[in-house]
């Protein structure tokens, strides 16, 4: 199938990416080649086949409901690129 630059713009927006024009042109051509190759799957008849997401049939895996320590607040915040008053700092999100 044909991959257009508009489609690349749309999936870039969904992915929170913004490719410079030169990279976008190259990426569009590469994605088209890769997607065309993936169409090989159309040769395989999968009618009536249930999709498998996990290979082993694990269901309803639970653990006992016990309180255990999780990460230390200060240690976790130490990895943040911008931190203030015990919270991660981001630009204002609500006008």
């Amino acid at each position: 199938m044909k991959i257009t630059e508009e489609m690349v713009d749309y999936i870039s927006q969904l992915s929170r990416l913004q490719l410079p024009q030169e990279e976008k042109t190259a990426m569009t051509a590469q994605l088209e080649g890769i997607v065309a190759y993936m169409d090989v799957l159309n040769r395989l008849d999968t009618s009536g086949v249930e999709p498998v997401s996990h290979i082993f049939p694990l269901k309803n895996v639970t653990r006992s409901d016990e309180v255990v320590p999780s990460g230390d607040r200060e240690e976790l915040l130490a990895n943040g690129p911008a931190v203030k008053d015990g919270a991660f700092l981001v630009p204002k999100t609500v006008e």
Partner: protein
Amino acid sequence: MELFELTALELGEKLRSGEVTREEAVEAARARIRAAQPANNAFVTVTEAPAPAAEGAASPLAGVPMAYKDNICTRGVRTTCASKILGDFTPCYDATVVERLAAAGAVSLGKLNMDEFAMGSTSETSCFGAVKNPWDLTRAAGGSSGGAAAAVAAGEVWYAIGSDTGGSIRQPAAYCSVTGMKPTYGTVSRYGLIAYASSLDQMGPIARSAADCAAVLDVMMGKDARDSTSLDVPAGGLLASLTGDLRGKKIGLPADCFGDGLDGEVRSAVLAAAEVLKARGATVEEFALPVMEYVVPAYYIIACAEASSNLSRFDGVKYGWRAEGYEDLGELYTRTRTQGFGTEVKRRILLGTFVLSSGYYDAYYKKALQTKAVIKAAFDRAFEQYDLLLTPVAPTTAPKLGESLTDPLKMYLSDIYTVSVNLAGLPALSMPCGFDSKGLPIGAQLIGPALGDAAVLNAAYGFQLDTDYHRQSPKGGDEV
């Protein structure tokens, strides 16, 4: 024989007998790292003062120096995934495998280079520069666990822990003439492994021998409440189970793995490996596995789909690197991700977003999950007839550096023999089985049925009793 040429178990034995002290082992490894790192770039971070081995550990590997691929979280040691976007991220917890290995006396010398977020087949997409193959520094070490394979091959550590989503342990092991094992999905906890494609990712050892891999897996394996996909099955006892006896074992060679696209010298070496297994009592026969045609597209659709979701957590807010020059939150995300991810990672995020997007989901993602069911059923049928399968690891020996970066589709196609194993959740091992006319290593892959890890290791152990490919070290891999 130099200390660094020993297997991990041989060194462990010398440490127990007192012939070598733990300090001497660490110093020998550090000397090798100083000599080889400038040439092969296997490490991202070398630990300046490695924590001493836990006292009283019963593991036969207690005190043996090792290292982790840099997508495995290590408390207090920078963990980068070889990506700019993780910056100086320093985990405040250890992965479960790190906890278990440390308790068993492992001494970590640092973190190993890799393809960015484990996305690549040559370890060239690292933001710290490419890993170079110790057998030929103009060639790739393979990927994505290229640093792990190169470090073991160059004698910088006696074993390393890698991760394998589509061949990332086995293929670099083959390119560097070391032994690497991807265990059955769910037998090793993924807690603390930075996710690429969660339904396919699994950690495992890279070492000189199958026996070393068994000893490492005896420590790594086992149920972990922190990974709900980890299986509640008995763990341990792999090393003790090795006999090398293959009498009565049936080994299948999938004809579809020996056809077009396979280098002639690789084919000959793998078929010669089949003869060695036959001489140990196995019967070997060809059979048809036509689903091989569909494994690469199914793999890349599923892996990229999961990656596009997993990598959404890297947004410049909670950890890692943040871009500058943003006006609002959306721009903060977009600038950070656009500048923080490399080209191959962006390609896979976009591909994954595409196959999951409205209008294309059924045609690509759902189709790939159905194909996965067909692939699994084909392997199930194969294992009704055979105890093990034998295939090449990769179609060729190690490519020249730079060759794979220009044509992503060509690089994806080179994963054909390894990705099916991840889709079906199976155990598989890559073992050295020869060299081509350029002197480059060739690997053979043994695949077992789900939870047949012991049988895979035993066949490789038998092969290594009769061959010495795994005991050969690269010559002159230290020159820059």
